[in-house]
């Protein structure tokens, strides 16, 4: 009995020290708020992401977000798994040179259905392009999903700008201008075409000469 008790004390002390050591660099992992089964599966996905050289940060962040928003373990697991699949697809489309931000933006665009994998390939970083298509894909997704710009108009215009070397500031400026035009009553696709033409040296970029039928036209 004495030996058992002493061994228990020694193990408890080791655990205490281990916990102390583990907690010093950060707070307790919020994943422990999930049920054990979901947590184990999410950790397995994180391991798989590491093995596949995919960023773990967005996966972990998705799980934390779900926990904070009081989703149950199965919901969180489902979203993390879905994001993992989209990150893999984004990696396949954008290539090994794509950074974490590009993969996240690509995965989000795939998740929302605003871009097809075959179109995502056009945002692969290359010698003429900026370092990361994260901004381009983020603004493209927003315009299609929330501002009503038709995918058939926006994707070619953005991919052309990207391949021509447009940088983050140009994509941001384009997004702001298009949003402003839409708010002032211009139809979304017309607003995009007009603003693309105004970008110096990029006026003939993209296949935006024949706008598609725009269901979100403001008049």
């Amino acid at each position, binding site marked *: 009995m*004495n*030996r058992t008790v002493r061994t228990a004390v020694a193990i408890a002390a080791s655990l205490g020290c281990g916990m102390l050591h583990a907690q010093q660099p*950060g*707070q307790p992992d919020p994943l422990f708020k999930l049920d054990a089964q979901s947590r184990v599966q999410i950790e397995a996905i994180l391991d798989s992401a590491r093995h596949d050289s995919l960023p773990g940060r967005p996966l972990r962040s998705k799980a*934390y977000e779900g926990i904070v928003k009081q989703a149950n373990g199965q919901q969180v697991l489902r979203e993390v798994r879905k994001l993992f699949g989209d990150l893999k697809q984004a990696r396949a489309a954008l290539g090994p040179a794509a950074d974490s931000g590009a993969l996240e933006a690509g995965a989000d665009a795939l998740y929302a259905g605003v871009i097809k994998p075959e179109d995502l390939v056009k945002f692969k970083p290359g010698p003429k392009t900026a370092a990361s298509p994260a901004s381009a894909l983020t603004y493209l997704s927003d315009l299609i999903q*929330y501002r009503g710009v038709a995918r058939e108009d926006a994707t070619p215009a953005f991919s052309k700008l990207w391949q021509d070397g447009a940088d983050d500031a140009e994509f941001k400026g384009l997004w702001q201008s298009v949003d402003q035009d839409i708010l002032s009553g211009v139809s979304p696709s017309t607003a995009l075409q007009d603003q693309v033409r105004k970008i110096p040296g990029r006026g003939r970029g993209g296949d935006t000469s024949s706008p598609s039928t725009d269901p979100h036209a403001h008049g």
Partner: protein
Amino acid sequence: MIDTELNPEHDPFVERIAEAARRPVAIDPEAKARIFAAIRAEPAPVRGRGAWRWLSNPRFVLSPIGSLVLAAGLVGIGVFLGARNRTGRDGQPTGQPQTVAAAKAQLPVSDASVKQVFVFVAPQAKRVSVVGDFNQWDQTATPLVRVNGTGPWTVALPLDAGRHVYSFVVDGRWMADPSAPLAPDDGFGHANSVLVVTAGSAL
């Protein structure tokens, strides 16, 4: 009544045995010398390995309840000290109110971090915070403060270069940043905002 025949003090047979037993035992000096030689020939007990000896050779007794209390105490100390050292992923302490001045004071966290200013206009709001992948979506980690007590809510944060997803929490309600692009529905019923930080960029 005592039967004298059964009293051992008066039994001559018993007395003879007792007398023999009282005589000192004489040990043969040679045998005694051999015994001590054998004892001296034994190797001395090994010193050291104190922790192992402490574990394997108990010297005090701890009751089961006492051992549980001790174990719980040790773990509790670890948890308490760990909680005191809590820091967020961005290197900032979490779980306590943070002001703009505090955020600025911690710059730069790394060479790749860029100070970003989050602004939210909500004149009627009583409490506004920003949550995102940079603070583990902790609603208490990054409160915004009001400029001059009545102006917009704001906070400055050093963020690593990259893509960040975030949202504002206004009096307990999740709200996207109206001045930033939106991420697709997060799968949990809300749409977040997106910020792409590049070296030298500012919100």
